[in-house]
């Protein structure tokens, strides 16, 4: 294939303003027979211009990633194929091109950044060589010049010591640094189009902010056309020029970012925006009444990583002097980035982890001083809702059994426990007949409801919810949060709500404790933490919330959620 000179040395081609950079016309992608719908993407039409960021928004299964994969030729051949329509790159149909020409386009003119920086890099190859690969494939540059270009690229994506870093293996880099390497790799051949598929979803919120800033500045500098796939309207508000909203493979709304964000027309867009978690101003401070239900005092836990017969293990401090008080009926949010030790504290309270020192007083009794037998009565009082709705239900047991197993273990009659399970299912918004079915017949949101029913079956006083909504789609997330809030109020439960997402915490918590590197750096009422944060780290977390400048349209704040059950 003949191609013009290496674009890095030539003046960028002036794009004809009448022809959009990318023109998707009536694209349809067929799924194999037996899938839940015949078309993953159904008659999709949109355009992407140079020098703009188009955000494609949708929930899981909406077909947004499929569209990107079709462009990059990444569809799982031969099961999934393009069934119709065209993808015009500068007026030329990519799908009709011969394979070799398509290959030249990919990585050269159109580049892609993936979601999971941990798996997108080859762990056995130095990062410099990985970036150099696409230069070698698409340019005639000799090795020394390639090397120089790699170092330049690493410098441009804001990595420190680029020359040294080029010789590092991926495992030495953090998640944010790897994502920067991925971006450098995508930029290597100065593409006209950059496709980013949820590039910040796997990252912590402060890292997400840095990567978004980087993406935005690089896009503006190079006048690239960018297709940014995301499920998060906060991110959309942060970077989008134009927005396309997808649902079940169809485009439901398409327009300028300010229009879609502030004046959404389609009911689905409105529902999505209404489910974006946000701090609700008028939430009242929780009146702390009576004795504290749970007091954690100076809890300390160190994990020992690695080690063996002849090697010393490396200590990792997960929790250091953690102190926390929960009153009856109060919801305490434990917020922090990954590795901050928030789950360690939660798991110590439910007795899944034994801390090294400190005390956990439940109604005055130190749970840590009890042996297994003495702890057993407290198992009922403290229950947990888990993160992953797909892993937290035994796939071989019926829903009714899953809920009834706890009470049966405490000596309740099986028939009675099963009858109670049906009542609980109704309480969490599921049909009683669900009791006879198996977990794989349910969606993520429904399974999480079952997980909540299982915890409630024990009639607990304290519910520890470990990231209960982080694996769910936004609209389902809203429903599950509402359910938790409702149940908590109805049953007068206290709750420890562990989350990495400050917006979610703001929506459901009375009190918020912010954790960083095994320590609680700030604790106070939601209102105080959100409006007058005292700690610098809390401020940086708040500052990093995507789309904080965007004000959700008033008529969509706390709007009734569409659909009763997820």
């Amino acid at each position: 294939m003949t191609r013009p000179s290496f674009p890095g040395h030539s003046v960028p081609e002036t794009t004809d303003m009448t022809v959009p950079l990318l023109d998707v016309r009536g694209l349809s992608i067929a799924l194999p027979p037996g899938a839940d719908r015949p078309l993953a993407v159904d008659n999709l039409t949109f355009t992407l211009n140079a020098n703009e960021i188009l955000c494609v928004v949708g929930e899981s299964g909406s077909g947004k990633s499929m569209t990107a994969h079709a462009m990059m030729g990444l569809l799982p051949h031969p099961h999934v194929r393009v069934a119709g329509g065209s993808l015009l790159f500068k007026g030329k149909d990519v799908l009709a091109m011969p394979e070799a020409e398509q290959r030249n386009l990919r990585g050269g003119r159109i580049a892609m950044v993936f979601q999971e920086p941990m798996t997108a890099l080859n762990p056995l190859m130095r990062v410099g060589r990985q970036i150099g690969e696409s230069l070698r494939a698409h340019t005639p540059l000799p090795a020394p010049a390639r090397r120089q270009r790699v170092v330049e690229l690493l410098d441009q994506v804001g990595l420190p010591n680029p020359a040294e870093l080029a010789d590092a293996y991926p495992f030495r880099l953090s998640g944010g640094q790897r994502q920067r390497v991925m971006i450098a790799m995508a930029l290597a051949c100065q593409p006209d189009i950059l496709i980013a598929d949820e590039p910040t979803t796997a990252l912590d919120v402060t890292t997400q902010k840095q990567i978004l800033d980087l993406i935005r500045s690089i896009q503006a500098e190079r006048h690239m056309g960018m297709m940014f796939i995301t499920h998060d309207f906060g991110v959309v508000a942060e970077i989008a020029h134009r927005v396309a909203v997808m649902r079940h493979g169809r485009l439901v709304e398409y327009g300028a970012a300010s229009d879609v964000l502030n004046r959404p027309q389609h009911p689905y867009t409105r529902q999505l925006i209404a489910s974006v978690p946000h701090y609700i101003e008028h939430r009242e401070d929780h009146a702390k009444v009576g004795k504290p239900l749970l007091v954690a005092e100076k809890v300390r836990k160190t994990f020992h990583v690695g080690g063996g017969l002849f090697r010393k293990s490396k200590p990792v401090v997960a929790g250091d002097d953690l102190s926390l008080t929960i009153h009856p009926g109060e919801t305490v949010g434990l917020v922090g980035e990954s590795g901050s030790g928030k789950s360690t504290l939660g798991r110590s309270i439910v007795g899944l982890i034994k801390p090294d020192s400190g005390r956990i007083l439940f109604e005055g009794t130190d749970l840590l001083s009890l042996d297994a037998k003495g702890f057993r009565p407290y198992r009922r009082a403290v229950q947990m809702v888990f993160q992953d709705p797909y892993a937290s239900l035994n796939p071989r047991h019926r829903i009714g059994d899953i809920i009834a197993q706890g009470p049966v273990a405490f000596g309740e009659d099986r028939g009675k426990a099963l009858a109670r399970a049906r009542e609980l299912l109704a309480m969490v918004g599921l049909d009683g007949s669900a009791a006879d079915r198996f977990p794989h017949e349910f969606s993520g949101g429904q399974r999480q409801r079952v997980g909540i029913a299982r915890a409630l079956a024990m009639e607990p006083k304290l519910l520890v919810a470990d990231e209960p909504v982080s694996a769910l789609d936004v609209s389902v997330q809203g429903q599950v949060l509402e359910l938790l809030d409702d149940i908590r109020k109805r049953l007068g439960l206290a709750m420890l709500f562990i989350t990495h997402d400050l917006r979610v915490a703001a929506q459901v918590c009375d009190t918020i404790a912010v954790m960083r590197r095994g320590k609680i750096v700030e604790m106070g009422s939601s209102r105080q933490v959100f409006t007058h944060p005292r700690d610098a780290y809390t401020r940086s977390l708040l500052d990093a919330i995507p789309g904080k400048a965007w004000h959700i349209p008033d008529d969509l704040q706390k709007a009734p959620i569409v659909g009763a059950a997820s």
Partner: protein
Amino acid sequence: MLKLSSSSGDFWKAFARNKGAVFGLVILAGILVLAAFASVLFPGDPWDMATAPFQPPLSEGSPLGSDMLGRDIAAGIAHGARVSLLIGLTSTAAALAIGVTLGALAGFHGGRVDDAIMRFTELFQTIPNFVLAVVLVAIFTPSLTTIVAAIAIVSWPPLARLARAEFMSLRTREFVQAAITTGQSNTTIILRQILPNSLSPIIVSASLMVATAILLESSLSFLGLGDPNAMSWGYMIGAARTVIRQAWWMSFFPGLAIVLTVLALNLVGEGLNDALNPKLARSRG
């Protein structure tokens, strides 16, 4: 995605997709029928002289020929099928009982218990299987019971390692943690929560182990360490090896029986693997 065959129909459909497995199942069924009706098809003791010695196959009264003492080879194979299958199944069952129990305890409890059990397992793994089996049978005079015990003792370690690995990974799954927080006892968690979810790979390797056990038994009998009262394929080959150049059929037909049985079991094992681990099966396209 782990799609569980909640109905047996799904399971059979997945199993039948593997043509080799169906073929294996048919052979296995034939051998089972042969073993079940051995005394009807070939009444009398297979050790008794039935015809003249050194009769070639297809001669009068002995379709597969006779051995140097005039015993009917066909009758020996039919009765030997009983011994082979009996030893294969019982020794695998015994190995499963030892291996899965130890592996489950090691994987579930971890720490010191795991260390102790795994060092014990390694003790067995460092000794060559067959040598240990020979020594055990030689010490405890050969009989069906000692042979079964010896085979079980040498073949449980891989099952223990497999069960341990399964238990270790399932132990950290959230549904097991949920079972702990809802106060279920360790026994309940091991038997009701983890074991059913770890069975697929264990069943597959157990089916292959039956084949190995049959081979081990044949090898022991070949060396003259079989039960002297039970006719077995290994014994027949062992006894006929000195006359193999004059009378090929004496060792050929029992050998063929061993090959077919072991092949059938391996095919069935592979089919089970496809049906029980759909993730792997799908990659075959």
